[in-house]
């Protein structure tokens, strides 16, 4: 569909050849990659129907009896996401200003950006594993992992928001004899506030999901419960847990989206 559109819009030979090359290349890459990802095992999805059937039966009969336990675990996961996100905003706020070209000199701005790159580059699962070693199993390791990874993401987004502000109001603040820090607080912060809040809320949404995954490394919460039920073949518990995760994450998405659309 895409290549045909291109051809219709720009029916010159070069475009046509370029489109052919691009899509042909993609096709070749897909074919060559198929053995590596064991695409041939796809029929197992149906031939091992016993296992699947077992799983599906469990999913059809969610474990309603223990929903309160699961809900309280879900609540713990959301609390992890909340703390992780708020700590991240705390870290990202100064770094967001210091990482902006129009605020900090290159000697500060560049190292701050590289630090943010590093925080972003390490997946929270890896950071979490390190923190489990430091503070032991439990939600705190998850909170810290979320905080650092999210600080890397938010710091970069915050900096870019600062770099795209209108410099004129800031000059207006400077002209009254304000301190440079006052210029940032009075001239820049009000301009970036809506965008920053929107970014932070969006990251909180994603962190609600990340916090679930962090259960895998023993960070507690609903994720841990989910992986335990899977390992114990307790599929009706798995089903109930998945239902609760879907409800909670969707609810947060809806609320946060509603707030974000009102902000911008």
């Amino acid at each position, binding site marked *: 569909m895409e290549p045909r559109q291109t051809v219709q819009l720009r029916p010159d030979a070069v475009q046509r050849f370029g489109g052919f090359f691009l899509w042909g290349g993609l096709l070749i890459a897909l074919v060559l990659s198929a053995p590596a990802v064991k695409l041939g095992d796809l029929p197992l999805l149906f031939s091992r129907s016993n296992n699947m059937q077992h799983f599906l039966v469990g999913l059809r009969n969610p474990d309603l009896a223990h929903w309160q336990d699961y809900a309280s675990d879900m609540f713990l996961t959301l609390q992890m996401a909340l703390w992780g996100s708020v700590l991240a905003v705390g870290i990202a706020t100064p770094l967001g200003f210091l990482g902006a070209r129009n605020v900090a000199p290159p000697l500060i701005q560049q190292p701050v950006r590289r630090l943010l790159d590093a925080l972003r580059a390490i997946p929270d699962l890896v950071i979490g594993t390190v923190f489990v070693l430091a503070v032991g199993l439990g939600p705190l390791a998850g909170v810290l992992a979320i905080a650092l990874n999210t600080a890397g993401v938010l710091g970069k987004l915050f900096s870019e928001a600062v770099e795209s502000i209108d410099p*004129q*109001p800031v*000059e*207006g*603040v*400077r*002209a*009254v*004899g*304000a*301190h440079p*820090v*006052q210029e940032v*607080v*009075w*001239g820049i912060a*009000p*301009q970036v*506030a*809506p965008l920053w809040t929107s970014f932070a809320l969006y990251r909180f949404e994603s962190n609600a999901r990340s916090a679930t995954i962090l259960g895998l490394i023993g960070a507690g919460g609903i994720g841990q419960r989910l992986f335990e039920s899977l390992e114990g073949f307790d599929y009706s518990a798995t089903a109930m847990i998945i239902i609760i995760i879907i409800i909670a994450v969707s609810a947060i998405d809806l609320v946060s989206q509603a707030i974000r659309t009102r902000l911008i």
Partner: protein
Amino acid sequence: MHSAVLEAQSVSVRFGDRLALDQVSFTLAPGEMTALVGPSGSGKSTLLRAFAGLTPIADDGGRIVALGERLQDQGRISPDARRLRARIGFVFQKFNLVGRLSLYSNVMMGRLGRTPFWRGLLGLWDKHEAALGHAALDRMGLHEQTRQRASTLSGGQQQRGALARALVQEAEVILADEPVASLDPASAHRVMDALAKVNAEDGVSVLVSLHQIDLALAYCSRIVALSEGRIVFDGPASSLEASALHAIYGEEYADAAPARSAVKP
């Protein structure tokens, strides 16, 4: 006190290869309301910004003295520039208010240079300062708009808000850079009236750059004309002749002085 509020001594400003100001010497006397005129790119904004310590001057022996203190010297802005800026009001062509903050917050920012750092940072204005703010807003006819977001105000209201900020600042001199260039004629006159009133009633010296000659002649007793970074005319408004204007403005003459093309000096 000082004999001059603002003083430029053979000031040059370079932007890359371009000479925006070329050895300009100029003095503004206390209580004076002077217009800076000239075609676009003649250096009006640059001179005003140099007086506020916003644009650094070239290191070729020129210097800028504001309110009796050295503001720029040897191509460097004095470390004391912040303290001096607090005493100099600046009005921008595009108002430069912070759109998302209330008009009141914007006006109170005029105190930032005059209050201790933390109090200013947190916006904890005392009673005296708040009273100054409300008085300034009343004077500018903006009482109703006090709590409104600056971005929701009309251009004329925003510019009068910027003037209120200079009042709250208790500025001893106001530099206005094309303050009415973005406004319709009625709003422009209202802003110029307010500026002239502050000059007349408070004795605040005013240096205002204007593209339109008519406004300059109507509101200012002294006219300084710049062309290609040099002062080409400096004298009472009455002695500015149409032929001189023609020479100053060239192709922009009809735009800058539409009504005067036919009028004799």
